[in-house]
Each structure stands twice: as C-alpha cells, then as structure tokens.
C-alpha cells in the first residue's frame, strides 16, 4: 500500500499538489508513481518562469525502463524547480513528498475547473485501478 498523505491533493495521472503558506503550490509525483517507475536515473524539471498549463507535460521522469511525462496539476508560472534532482534523481524514489518535489508554481487566478482529488479520493482511485 503506497503512502498517500492526507494534507495533499492529487491527480489521476499521479501528481500531488501542496499549498504553501506564501500562496504558492508545490508539485511532485506520488509514492505510487515512483514505485511503478522504478529506480529513476534522470529528472528533467521546467525552467523558472516557464508558464505551465493544467494537464500539459511540464517535467520528464526517466527510469531505466521508461521516460514519462509529468503533467502539471494546475496552471501557473514556475517560480522554482528542484535543481537537486539533476544530480540526485534517487531523491524522488526515497522521498517523493519531500526532497523529491519537482516545482513550485504561482497559480493562475482561480481556475474553477480544477478537478484535483483528495487523499481519500486518490486512494479509492488507486484501489479501483488495481
């Protein structure tokens, strides 16, 4: 059973979103996603100031067997990305909700259509998929 922290929001494509105190959001991929990918060998994060849109590819995670897109859960502007991952992609395997974060975004003003899942909903989604 994978780890699904209750204080985060999730997507069906296995990204998580954390609201930060300064109004920014932090984005990463879930424990389930990192386990499914296996040992990561390379992570490509977006450059600061890139404009990303919900549902569009914003990062690439590459394991020994596959390279997969990470889709941005929300729309916004990248204000920081995790440069540490370039040298230590394994951080994403070891600590997907902490040191393995991918990027921090300044969200675009109130997009009402955001269909993010709660931890419970994501857990149900994973169960249904299995």
């Amino acid at each position, binding site marked *: 059973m994978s780890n699904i922290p209750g204080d985060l929001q999730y997507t069906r494509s296995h990204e998580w979103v954390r609201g930060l105190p300064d109004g920014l959001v932090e984005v990463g991929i879930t424990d389930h996603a990192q386990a499914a990918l296996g040992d990561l060998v390379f992570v*490509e994060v977006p450059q600061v100031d890139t404009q990303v849109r919900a549902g569009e590819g914003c990062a690439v995670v590459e394991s020994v*067997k596959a390279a997969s897109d990470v889709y941005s859960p929300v729309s916004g502007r990248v204000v920081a990305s995790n440069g540490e991952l370039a040298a230590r992609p394994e951080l994403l395997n070891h600590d997907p909700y902490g040191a393995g974060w991918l990027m921090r975004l300044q969200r675009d003003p109130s997009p009402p259509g955001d269909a993010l899942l709660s931890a419970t909903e994501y857990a149900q989604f994973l169960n249904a998929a299995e």
Partner: protein
Amino acid sequence: MPYIPHTASDVARMLEVIGVRSIDDLFDEIPSALKTTALSGVPPALTEMEVARLLTERAARDGRPLNFIGAGAYEHHIPAPVWSIATRGEFYSAYTPYQAEASQGTLQLIYEYQSMMCALTGMDVSNASLYDGASALAEACLMAVRANRATHARRILLPRAVNPTYRQVARAITGNQHIEFDVVDFDRRQGRVALTALEAHGARDATALVVQQPNFFGNLEEVDPLTDWAHANGMLVIAVVNPVALALLKPPGEWGGLIDDKRGADIVCGEGQPLGVPLASGGPYFGFMATRMQHVRQMPGRIVGRTADLEGRPGFTLTLQAREQHIRRSKATSNICTNQGLMVTAATIYLSLLGAEGLRRVATASAQRTAALVHALTSIPGVTAAFDAPRFHEAVLLLDRPVAPVAAALAERGILAGFDLCASYPELGNALLICATETKLDADIAAYASALAVVMQSSRGASGADQGEADG
C-alpha cells in the same frame, strides 16, 4: 513454402470477427486515385544471368570518367581491406540486431565508431549513426529546439552557404513541426557567412545557428567568432562538418572562446560517406551526430555504452534508450529505428586502418590537389576563382560563359568538370563547384586543364548564343 503463418481460413475467420469482407476493404479509406493498379511499365522478370548482363552493359555506358564533382559526396581511395572485412558474415547486415546485447561484436564495433567520432569532433558523445548528412542536419535542428531550454523560439539561422540539399531536407523533415528557418546570406567576395550579416538576424529570439565547415562552396567559415556570437545571443551552435576535413581543422568541440567554462559547438553532425563508403548514385551513405553530455538525452538514435557484467567483465550495451520510440512511442526523441550499420562498419574499419596520421595525409593531399587544380584552371582565359576565402578541397570557379555546355563538352572527353551551381545559386552567374581529392594525380589535373582550355577556346565563337540561352 511461403513464410506466411496465416492460412486462408485463418484470414477468413479474422475478417469475419472484425466484420470486413476482404483485406482490400481495410484500405477503403485510401482514395482510389492514390492506389496503384497493374504496373504497366514494368517489364517481365529477367533471370540472374540476364540481369547481370544488362547491368554490366549499362554500367559500361558510364565509362570511367575522371570525376571532379564533390558537392557533398566525395571520391576517396578506399583501401581493399575495408570492404573485404565489412562484408564478412559476422558484420554483413544493415541493422543493429534486435537482441542487441547478444551481438557483442557488433556493439563493440559501434562503440569504437562512437569513440572515433568523438575524437574527431571533440565532443563527449556520439550516436550510432543516422541515415545521411542531410537528415542528420534535420535531426540536429529538432534536437536543438528540444535542448535549448533558454528560449521558446523555434527559429534556426541557416546560412545559404550550407549544402542546398541539406537545407531542403531539413525543411521537409521539420515542415510540420513549426520550425522556422531564417536564411543568412553569404558574403559575395568571401563566399562565407559574414558576422555583419548575422547581426541583422540576431535581434529576434533564435534557437540555433547552423555552421557548415567547410561550407558548400568549400570555403572555411570563421567558426570561432560565429560560435561566440551565437552563444552570446543564447543560441546553440549546430556544426555540419566533413569528417575528413576534421583531420586538419579545429574540432567543433573547440570552436570559439571560453564562455562560462564552456566552448565549442553544441551539436555536430554531417555526412559520413567520405570515410570508406564508395560513391553510388546517392547512397547508401550514413549520417553522424555527436553532442555534449549535457544534451545527451535529447540526442536521437542509438548509443552503445561500455559496462561491466555481473562478474566484472567488460561488455557493451545499448544505453539511454528510454526516450526511443520503442519505449516512448509518439513522444520519442526521433523515429530513427535503426542506423546505417554496414556503412558505419566500413567507416570504422577505414578509420582504424588509416589512423589519425593516415586521415591527416588524406586531408592534406586533398587540400593540396584542389589548390593545384584551382591554380591550373584559373590560368585559362575566361576562368576565375569566385571567392578569396581559405578553402579545403572544393572551390567555386566563374566562367565567362554558361557552365552547362562547357561541362557537357568535357564529359564527352571523359571529364566530369564539377557541380553546376546555376540552379542552386543563380546569383553567382556561371559558377562551377570543383573538387579534387587525393585520388587526383598531377596528370589528372593537367588533363582537366588542357581539356578545359580546348573547350573554352573552341566554344568562344558560340558563347554569345549560349549566353542568350541561359538568360532565357
């Protein structure tokens, strides 16, 4: 026995399941105007003996002309061992094997090839080859757009002095990917890119600058200031190089000055044919590509790595494949599914036989022969050199009359005079691109010069009429 596993009844059952009457019905969506029916122009089959005879006769019609045409494909001496080794059963395949790691010899050969290309280009990594030089440039342009993350531009500065076929192929391959090519003119006196011309293009955001060295006219570009200018403007540098010339010239990995601890071209590509592959009506040739470690994940094609097995023994393996099409499907970095393995085998053997010193001698002799040829031909009245930039083994001559009839008259004398530039570069007038490699001896150059002198002399009276024809 036909090698088709499905019987007629298998096929009938499958068609029934999907609700289609015949296999042809599966192709209904193709308009009938696009479908071929019986091939009326195809003659009946010939036996092997008949085919051999026909081809021998046809080949004999070409004669054995003295060839002074380069323009992207070059006649070099190929030592006999190259193809006698390359066509051994162990190597004789155009493909890298599907079960790649079971073929350690093939992988080792590719690894040696990559190592040699890195040494020649001064880059960190080479792929296992591409189709040809032209498609290699197209792939390099696509790669530059992926790799240059500092800009969202998809605009590439492409000098007009780059091989016109390469430019055409690059446009064709990238045509539906919204890449804009901005053509940079060449300096009329020097026959190469002038920095001042670039400045006019630099104001707008661009992804990369292509630098061909030597350029299509055989002239040497000022690669250092071009590289520095591109980097200072946030562009990547795509070098298109002749691998033989690299034996004498500064490797692209060292172009330009140190900027932020980095120097040199970012992507290097080109045509590998001069390395042991014979001229053959346009192919098969092979393309090469090399880059810096920083961009390795954006490089298309296969890469062989050296590793150690569980018992610590050295071995070879395909590496960095996660972005190739068999894994990433539509999002793959390219759809290069194989490479020109056999041509690469020949090139690897060629380079191993010659060594660094041998390749340097080939390059030096080629440059010297071309210098001698230019000297001999420009001594003829009505023949001048078009440009005064330093050159490698090609040069552009200007004639005082249209090129085509002169070239035709020389062809009748068994001499292929060069590549007529009038279709690709009408602005140059009566321009002829000539090339002499190490294969052209003093006697060959003298034969060309005396034949050209005779042709120029005898066609003098007719030149006015020819001029009129060309103008029309």
